[in-house]
């Protein structure tokens, strides 16, 4: 497919500008995490620190068990993501390939929960977690977050685009549902799974309203809570250390993304359903 060059160049320009706008803040944040705080205040325009220092990171590592915290965050994000993907996949499969009484109502109810503000469920959920004895515990952080219909929604959309005849062939060969799920549906909805998975991972990774309620001891903190420890309205926020935490917070997902980028982008571009 061939397109007018001039049009193409205009678009390249638009993309470059957009990307600059999107990426510069990130670079700025990274730069800031290597500045002494007064430098940050007084040399605002320097994206790259003049007096680069590791001070902020040292402060961070001195005050917090940052490896432990990173590990906690990783566990929470990974476990929640995997659980959510599994339940969502199963539910989507049921919604697409079965028909049973009340299916549409149930679907509507589940999808409706996307619009329930978390404020509505916060206190009752706190009670539940407390009764389950899961305060200050990763499970307390994970469990309520599993109730997220976004996955069901997207995976279902994606499943509905699989030509039915593929499932028919498999049914004809007397494949069990388990097999069909694993060998046919799963590979074909991989783009959806990947994108929802990334979404889940990033959002649990960065979640802070809920863990703030549940987690109490520093050893159990997740990274966003660590970030909160450097933000104070009254004493002034320590922006540079906060940026150091931010850098650490984004580094793991980023490394994960970069190492799987080929796979992820590949997934998106080679779904090949049609």
């Amino acid at each position, binding site marked *: 497919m061939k397109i007018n060059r001039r049009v193409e160049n205009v678009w390249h320009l638009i993309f470059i500008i957009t990307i600059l706008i999107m990426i510069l803040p990130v670079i700025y944040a990274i730069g800031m995490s290597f500045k002494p705080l007064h430098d940050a205040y007084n040399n605002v325009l320097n994206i790259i620190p003049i007096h680069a220092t590791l001070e902020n990171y040292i402060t961070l590592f001195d005050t917090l068990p940052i490896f432990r915290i990173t590990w906690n965050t990783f566990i929470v994000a990974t476990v929640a993501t995997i659980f959510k993907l599994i339940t969502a996949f199963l539910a989507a499969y049921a919604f697409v390939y079965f028909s049973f009484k009340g299916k549409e109502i149930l679907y509507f109810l589940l999808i409706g929960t996307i619009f329930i503000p978390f404020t509505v469920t916060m206190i009752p959920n706190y009670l539940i977690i407390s009764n389950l004895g899961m305060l200050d515990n990763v499970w307390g952080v994970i469990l309520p977050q599993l109730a997220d219909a976004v996955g069901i929604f997207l995976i279902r959309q994606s499943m509905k685009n699989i030509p039915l005849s*593929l499932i*028919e*062939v498999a049914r*004809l*060969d*007397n494949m069990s549902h388990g097999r069909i799920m694993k060998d046919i549906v799963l590979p074909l909805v991989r783009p959806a799974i990947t994108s929802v998975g990334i979404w889940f991972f990033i959002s649990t990774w960065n979640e802070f309203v809920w863990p703030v309620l549940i987690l109490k001891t520093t050893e159990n903190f997740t990274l966003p809570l660590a970030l909160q420890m450097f933000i104070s309205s009254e004493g002034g926020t320590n922006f540079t250390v906060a940026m150091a935490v931010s850098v650490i917070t984004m580094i793991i997902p980023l490394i994960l993304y970069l190492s799987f980028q080929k796979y992820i982008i590949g997934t998106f571009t080679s779904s*090949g359903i049609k």
Partner: protein
Amino acid sequence: MKEIKFENVRKVYGDTEVVKDLNFTVREGERLILLGPSGCGKSTILRMIAGLEEITSGNLYMNGQRVNDTPSGKRNVSMVFQNYALYPHMTVKQNIMYALKVKKIEKKEIERRFDFVLEMLQLRGYENRLPKQLSGGQRQRVALARATVNRSDFFLLDEPLSNLDAQLRVSARKELMKIHEMFGQTIVYVTHDQIEATTFADRIVLMYNGELQMIDTPDNVYHRPANVFTAKFIGSPPTNILNIEYDHGAVRIGSQSFLLNEIWKDYVNQTGTNKLLFGIRPEHIELSPVSAQKGVRGQVKYIENQGNNYGVYINVEGQEIIAMSESKNWTDGQDVYVCPVMEKIHFFDKDTERNIGYPQGLEMKDGITYSNERKVNV
């Protein structure tokens, strides 16, 4: 008892009835061909057998048991889909082997079957391609291969060779027949290729508009068409159906007429009807540039090259007749005499369009006597 029986089966989509009150039986181990114009319901029938389409009403029996509600996986059916339905994320090899692997068939046996089918469909070299990297015909062959390795009791094929070249089609067909001889599956096969139908079929089912028109052997379908539709549908170019007036042995076309032989004359007279249609296949017409006794005169309209034959389109008293000729030596507008071969003519009732049957002892050029009953459903 690997037979399939349709009993008053209907299929309705929304408010279109695409299969109407279907009754017939596919016999155990039979190779049955489904023929019919595009959209007549052939794929729907296969899909009902496979259990992929709900049966609106009526009963479907397989192995003597009512299977209307049996899930497709339990029917022991393999199918080649008209649109292939290949797994896009699996290579050719994976596509073909998948079901076998799931069925836990021995590895060696899987390899054996795979090798066999790969050879049979000339797919060697493409084992590791994804479907999207294949040509149309190659995809079709993979679909066929995938269904073939299965060795199910029932084997359904929906135009499995339509995108293949003639050579490959012939060889694939032969291989399918060999496999059938070995395993004796009950085969239902949809095709638009009449050569394929006649060479492959034990019996042919002819459908039109969701209704069964005829079910019989290829010979009978060709030589003893049950009705005008069958006569016109089978054979290409189609049987010429002419409006005639019949009068005591004389067949009048417009202002001309020719005489039937005695045996026909007696038979037609005895049926008592004279509102008849006359049928003759293009290949059963002898053309002659000079006046012929048992023929009528017409003018050549145009000539169509058909490879080793020529189709000659002739205007006879305002009706178009096509005749096959080995010779190209006809010129447009030329007068020509059209002589139907008496042993190969057909008469149909003008109202019902049903075949009125054939006289006893009508001797065929090829020396075989066809059944002379009027057959529709069996």
